[in-house]
């Protein structure tokens, strides 16, 4: 699913990734750990086609990072950033409907997804009125609607309460069982029992693999 060899990403003259070699197989869970500025988010953004490869080579979800269409890669990933998702002035339902229509997905799964993440009663609430934890749940609902083959989750536990963390773990488990490949970033190694692998990043490089 993921192949990187000497992947370098430079932004504003500063190397965000300084030569990453990485192989990730399908239907696996990988946790990216490391301190602030280690390169976790940059690596996820590279894998999601949100930043370009400056040098090196890579292939993600069948798309060549150096020569392929990054927009096509973006359509193949489920992204959960550590900020909010979509538009503050739209309601939860409008946001998810917009995203589903954009990808020509069926809207039938939206109400089920909202129910699953406990946001059914907030479907018609503008996103800006939601708490940070509820916004994370909207992002999680979108992942459920989207069912992408590759999930990229940047600090998914941020702002979540204990109930939200359990919910997140459940969803990750179901997605893995369904064959998704999941990469999760975290400041510290998480208590994910199913983590097949924990990568430690520092200075834009992978410095540990366990």
């Amino acid at each position, binding site marked *: 699913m993921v192949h990187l060899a000497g992947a370098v990403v430079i932004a504003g003259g500063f190397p965000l990734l300084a030569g990453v070699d990485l192989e990730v197989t399908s239907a696996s869970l990988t946790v990216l750990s490391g301190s602030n500025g280690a390169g976790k988010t940059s690596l996820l*953004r590279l894998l999601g086609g949100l930043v370009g490869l400056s040098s090196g080579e890579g292939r993600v979800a069948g798309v060549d990072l150096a020569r392929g269409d990054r927009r096509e890669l*973006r359509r193949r990933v489920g992204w959960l950033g550590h*900020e*909010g*998702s*979509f538009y503050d*002035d*739209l309601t939860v339902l409008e946001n998810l409907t917009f995203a589903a*229509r*954009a990808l020509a997905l069926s809207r039938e799964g939206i109400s089920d997804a909202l129910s699953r993440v406990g946001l059914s009663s907030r479907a018609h609430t503008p996103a800006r009125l939601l708490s940070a934890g509820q916004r994370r749940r909207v992002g999680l609902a979108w992942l459920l609607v989207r069912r992408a083959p590759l999930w990229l989750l940047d600090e998914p536990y941020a702002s979540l309460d204990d109930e939200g963390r359990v919910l997140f773990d459940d969803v990750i488990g179901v997605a893995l069982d369904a064959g998704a490949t999941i990469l999760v970033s975290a400041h510290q190694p998480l208590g994910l029992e199913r983590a097949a692998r924990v990568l430690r990043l520092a200075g834009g490089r992978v410095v540990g693999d366990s």
Partner: protein
Amino acid sequence: MIRVALLVAAKDLRIEARSRVLLWQVVPFGVIALVLAGLALGPSRAGSSGAGPGLFYLVLVLVALLMITRSHGLERAAGTRSSVATLGLDPAGVFLGKSLALLVELASAALVLASGSVLLLHTSLAGTLRAAPSMTLALAGLAAAGTLYGALSAGEGAATLLPLVALPAMTPLLVAGERAYSAAVSGGALAPWWLILVCALVAYLGLGILLYGVLEDL
């Protein structure tokens, strides 16, 4: 492309209808600017000086800059840019959709400002109605150019960078629009100004369709 354009336009207009930034902030600003311009000229000179069309377009471009900044600010909110980017939307469709939404918003503002021009600056009502087609072309051009340059000036300091890059590009639209409005008021020929407006609109639409994806990724 058309499907994405309609989706994006509907989304932007829905956000505008809910937030009412145009209604409660931008249009009142435009009316105040028009009133101040009228006061600067003096009530007796405003109608007879023929300054109405020029002041209308001057205020309109200020309103347009605010709406362009707002339109692109929606996409730059924390988390929005990455989330929407992973939808992999056709950039030409996004460009056309945002331009269409901006055109509708600018047309709403222009309706109020044109009424203000007639009422406050005593610009001819018949001439203003005769200028409506050229105004529509100018607004469409402003929307297309604004969407294109809004993407170019996205990021930190966008609000101050946008006028610097967009105003020179909008000059043909503003000059031709103002001359067409003046000609409509005074009974002059409109065709040469329509031609300039159509050429500018086609150029900006073509550039936007071709380049918007590149600018989005800058």
